[in-house]
């Protein structure tokens, strides 16, 4: 029964995406809405990304020092390991898990509220493709802006580590900076950026799907919001494994 229900949900999700990915009726309105969504979903997330990245970057650096404190390892290994953790996992997978909570619940509750207050019915009666009108600008905006957030995250995390080096005696600044530059593989940056595009699509589309299909009242909107965060998070983890296997091996 669970398998049948899951397959049914996947089918509904695909049909929903098919409706969402249709040609906009008015390009001018689509572009305007996309920029509004870039601001709402992307630019508004920058403070959160900066705060989290700064602290996690600092914590990673301290943890690395504590756990790799061995005469067999060079001191710059702290900076090197912190950099690779940030580039490979934190700036994309972990950041997207956090954003699934902020952006995902925002999208699901916004569209869900529109559904229960009949605003989506109003669009349909006017002859507007509501799935395309509401969802496509969010998808395009979030997928387009996610690399910016990821790059912000990469930079700020390393800055967090640098602040630890500057204001504590965990590691010297020169060794930390040398570690950040040592044995650098540029593909890791591309790997992080490619992953974040997939995750951004998952967050925006899954949250929209749950919000769009709300039935009932405010209680169901809250439930849809929770479901969207849980489902997005699970899918992000699943795709993280798949993409790592494909892109790094």
């Amino acid at each position, binding site marked *: 029964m669970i398998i049948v229900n899951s397959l049914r949900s996947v089918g509904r999700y695909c049909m929903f995406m098919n409706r969402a990915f249709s040609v906009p009726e008015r390009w001018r309105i689509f572009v305007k809405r996309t920029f509004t969504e870039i601001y709402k979903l992307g630019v508004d997330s920058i403070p959160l990304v900066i705060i989290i990245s700064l602290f996690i970057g600092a914590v990673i650096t301290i943890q690395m020092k504590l756990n790799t404190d061995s005469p067999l390892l060079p001191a710059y290994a702290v900076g090197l390991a912190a950099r690779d953790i940030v580039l490979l996992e934190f700036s994309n997978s972990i950041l997207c898990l956090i954003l699934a909570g902020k952006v995902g619940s925002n999208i699901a509750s916004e569209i869900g509220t529109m559904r229960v207050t009949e605003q989506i019915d109003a669009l349909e*009666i*006017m*002859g507007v493709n509501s799935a395309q009108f509401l969802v496509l600008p969010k998808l395009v905006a979030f997928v387009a802006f996610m690399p910016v957030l990821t790059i912000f995250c990469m930079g700020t995390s390393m800055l967090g580590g640098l602040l630890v080096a500057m204001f504590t005696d965990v590691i010297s600044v020169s060794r930390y900076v040398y570690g950040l530059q040592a044995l650098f593989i540029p593909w890791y940056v591309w790997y992080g950026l490619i992953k974040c595009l997939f995750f951004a699509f998952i967050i925006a589309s899954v949250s929209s799907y749950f919000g769009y299909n709300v039935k009932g009242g405010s209680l169901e909107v809250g439930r849809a919001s929770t479901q969207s965060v849980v489902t997005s998070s699970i899918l992000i983890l699943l795709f993280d494994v798949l993409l790592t296997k494909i892109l790094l091996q």
Partner: protein
Amino acid sequence: MIEVKDITKSFDGRTILHDVSATFYTGKTNLIIGQSGSGKTVLMKSLVGLLKPDSGQILFDGRDIVSMDIKAQKALRKEIGMLFQGSALFDSETVLGNVMFPLTMFSDSPYDEMLDRAHFCLKRVNLEGASDKYPNEISGGMQKRVAIARAIALNPKYLFCDEPNSGLDPKTSILIDELLSDITHEYNMTTIINTHDMNSVLGIGENIVFINKGYREWVGDKRKIFTTANEALNEFVFATRLFQEVKDYVIHNASKEPE
């Protein structure tokens, strides 16, 4: 004119509408009345194409919305305006933005003309001063009027209203009723109002369709309703003592009138 021919609609094996037929006339306020759960909302949603009937036809001046393809349905929907029970205004748009919305989506007119039209519609519903306000900054009655202005922005041929008076005080309800009636006659629209407000029934009911337990039980106007022999309709319309007294008064006075 909208003609409904033998429509049936079921959900999970339970039939909500049984072979319902009715005619809704142009230039008249057509009312669908019935108790909660009688099927009138399902009928309304079928009329506007949000639900597809299992069988039957719904003809908009001869065009069957049930059998037409999506493209034709989309074109027809541009001739439809709808006022929802909860107004369904877009929270993120101002009053003016809400009225402008259908114009910017579907009209090819220059922006200034669209703006003029939106201001004209707001003026028609006496809301010129509220154009910069957001829906959550205005009263329920004003929200209904904005929804009416939005519904008539594209000059529709058909206007659907789902419980337009719900949640409004009696004075505002009468204002909304009068506005809907005036607009219907002014623009010669086919207006269909789904209601169980007896003030509306007796005030603006020019063509009333009574739905009971999924069946169309009675059709008539507000005068005929006083003399109906339909038991279910009598129980529904004259359920309160006040309306019973109104009915007795009307019948009493009618019998006194010289022939």
